[in-house]
């Protein structure tokens, strides 16, 4: 693999039917999951404007092949490049050029169709005005449910919306996103009705006319889209047949392939593939992405308000049980009891934030979004911290009532709020890393406290000390030291979180 520049050159496939630049090139590509090879050494080259149907039985490796092409996962062997960029060393550039609709598209149930479309656009760096988003929904026949929550959608409606998010990107060439060179669709016809199929076929024709390469995985050849397409057959993870399109017109628009992303006009081919030219536009988009992630999580929580109630109720109940256990001693231990309860409630909040992504296939969606990873992390930390602060706002008065504590004056309450904010950011910063890391593990609820609580010791100690000092009117000269410790713990957790989150999200 050539890694000196970022453009990887590969010999064109002998099987490639049309004479156009290679967009997607897989060489000796293989992927294993544990001991099973989902895909064994496969070669595939797809030219600009070409449409390839990958057919095969269930479990033949179609989805794996698409995920490898989309840089959603790394190959175990071999190499893939898209528009000349390696999916391993230049995954970010690949993500900018690929629109991928997986078999389980990332759609958030508590968001409306329009909000889902907008979230996807923002995450992909496409600045689309609301009118154009509605226009897209009209095109796929979802305008009448634009403001309805996706939770109530049928599978076919969900499929249409997922295709709309891909089409929105492929059709847009504004913002920091360059054009999409490759569209990957996993079982796009599944659950689509006649109208939906007709729209999809039309869109596929548009893509061909524009010179965009399309790879469709399907277990059966249906629809007009299959006509005039190259067919690649997979069986047990191996390509067993590759039939060129019977009658294929050359692409109408010769596209430019391997043209590097135009971020700054002077950049043509970057000498170091890992260094991405970050422009002011990109940075602006990063902040917008962070805000979009936080808003998405908070909107979900706001609409499923019962979950916040359940967390606060759980916390209040724990305080009550601790009151029973400690009897008259509970009052003296109140600061410690409150903060231990907050840590226990944070497990629910963190698992909840992770659950939103797991249920909706959102982790994969976030992984496919190009650009820096820190906005995703920052957005999730902010959302979790806000949620936890709300729970704490319920727990503090509960503790005051249950343990017959004196009501602190406003000045002390404000200081307590500051301490709570510092402690909560620390919990959210480390907790977001761990809950995302173990999202796909069966025993994640049991593992989360085991991983999280040891590193929460400084935050617990400092928060308890600060609270006790503030509540008890003890000599407050110790307070600055403990708040500095809280701040230091926050800085350590946030910095490591920002540094490792790319690896956490990666697959």
């Amino acid at each position: 693999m050539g890694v000196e520049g970022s453009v990887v050159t590969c010999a064109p496939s002998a099987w490639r039917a049309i004479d156009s630049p290679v967009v997607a090139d897989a060489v000796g590509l293989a992927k294993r999951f544990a001991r099973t090879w989902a895909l064994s050494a496969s070669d595939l080259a797809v030219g600009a404007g070409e449409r390839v149907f990958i057919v095969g039985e269930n479990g033949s490796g179609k989805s794996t092949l698409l995920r490898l092409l989309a840089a959603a996962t790394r190959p175990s062997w071999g190499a893939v490049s898209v528009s000349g960029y390696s999916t391993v060393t230049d995954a970010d550039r690949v993500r900018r050029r690929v629109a991928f609709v997986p078999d389980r598209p990332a759609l958030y149930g508590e968001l409306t169709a329009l909000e889902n479309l907008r979230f996807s656009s923002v995450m992909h760096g496409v600045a689309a005005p609301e009118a154009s988003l509605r226009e897209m929904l009209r095109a796929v026949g979802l305008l009448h449910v634009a403001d309805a929550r996706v939770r109530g959608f049928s599978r076919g409606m969900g499929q249409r919306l997922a295709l709309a998010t891909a089409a929105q990107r492929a059709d847009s060439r504004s913002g920091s996103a360059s054009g999409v060179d490759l569209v990957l669709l996993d079982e796009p016809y599944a659950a689509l009705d006649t109208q939906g199929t007709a729209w999809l076929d039309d869109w596929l024709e548009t893509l061909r006319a524009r010179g965009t390469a399309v790879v469709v995985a399907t277990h059966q050849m249906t629809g007009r889209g299959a006509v005039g397409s190259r067919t690649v057959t997979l069986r047990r993870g191996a390509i067993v047949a590759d039939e060129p399109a019977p009658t294929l017109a050359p692409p109408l628009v010769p596209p430019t392939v391997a043209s590097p992303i135009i971020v700054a006009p002077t950049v043509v081919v970057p000498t170091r593939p890992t260094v991405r030219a970050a422009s002011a536009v990109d940075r602006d988009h990063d902040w917008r992405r962070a805000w979009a992630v936080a808003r998405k999580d908070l909107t979900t929580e706001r609409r499923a308000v019962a979950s916040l109630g359940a967390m606060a109720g759980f916390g209040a109940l724990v305080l009550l049980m601790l009151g029973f256990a400690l009897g008259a001693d509970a009052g003296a231990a109140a600061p410690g009891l409150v903060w231990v309860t907050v840590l226990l409630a944070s497990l629910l909040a963190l698992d909840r934030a992770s659950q939103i992504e797991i249920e909706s296939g959102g982790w994969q969606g976030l992984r496919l979004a190009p650009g820096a990873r820190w906005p995703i992390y920052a957005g999730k930390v902010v959302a979790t911290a806000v949620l936890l602060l709300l729970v704490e706002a319920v727990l503090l008065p509960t503790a005051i009532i249950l343990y017959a504590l004196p009501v602190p004056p406003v000045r002390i309450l404000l200081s307590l709020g500051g301490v709570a904010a510092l402690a909560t950011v620390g919990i959210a910063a480390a907790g977001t890393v761990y809950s995302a890391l173990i999202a796909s593990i069966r025993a994640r609820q049991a593992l989360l406290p085991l991983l999280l609580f040891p590193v929460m010791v400084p935050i617990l100690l400092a928060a308890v000390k600060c609270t006790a000092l503030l509540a008890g009117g003890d000599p407050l000269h110790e307070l600055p030291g403990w708040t500095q410790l809280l701040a230091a713990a926050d800085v350590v957790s946030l910095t490591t979180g920002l540094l490792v989150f790319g690896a956490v999200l990666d697959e």
Partner: protein
Amino acid sequence: MNRLANRPALGPILGGLALPTLLIGLYLGLVWAPADSQMGNVQRIMYVHFPSWIATAVGYLTAFVASVVYLVRRRPFWDHAAVAGAEIGVVFNIIGLVSGAIWGRPTWGVWWTWDPRLTSTAILLTIFVGYLLLRSFIEDPDTRARASAVVAIVGFVNMPIVYFSVRWWRTLHQVQSSPATVDPRMVLALRVMMVAAVLIAGSLIASRYELARLDDADERSGAPERSGSRRAMGIDPYEGATYG
């Protein structure tokens, strides 16, 4: 990692050096050095207790450094080194805690106390036990390596702040004696035992690394079948890869 396979095994070599060093150190510590003026022969547990923390540090530091390099380079090699360091670290961490408890009972009167060094090493143990547990839950070697590397890094970088917070919270541990006030024979015995500890830890880590490598080779056994690939097999997808 064929070039490593051809190398003479590091584990047995270090182990061969460790054994005589350990025997000499034990003789110096248990027989030759004088008993402590206040604690008597009980104090001789120091010759096991303190070196075991050196070995713990060697293990965890190996795990941390290897995890960082793994996330940057994504080579299985570094994951094997990380798990070797973590496991050996956990073993010596337990030895250190148990020997400390045995020492603490006659001198402090309690098995356990909320002393900062004791507490923070116990927390350290839970972090790396969590690391090993997490590994046992993930079947895919690459996913396992990536996830556990993150846990090792986050856990390790939090250790100084854990230690400071606990120390600030409460302190009891005896102040370290400076070599100037101690019988030189004690100092020599302890130094020899510390060298032995480093050699033992190095030997065990090297052997455990070898085991992890063989496990991995077994897990990844069988190259993908070729279906008329244009290029010969053996293209390494991670060549020149840097994390970014």
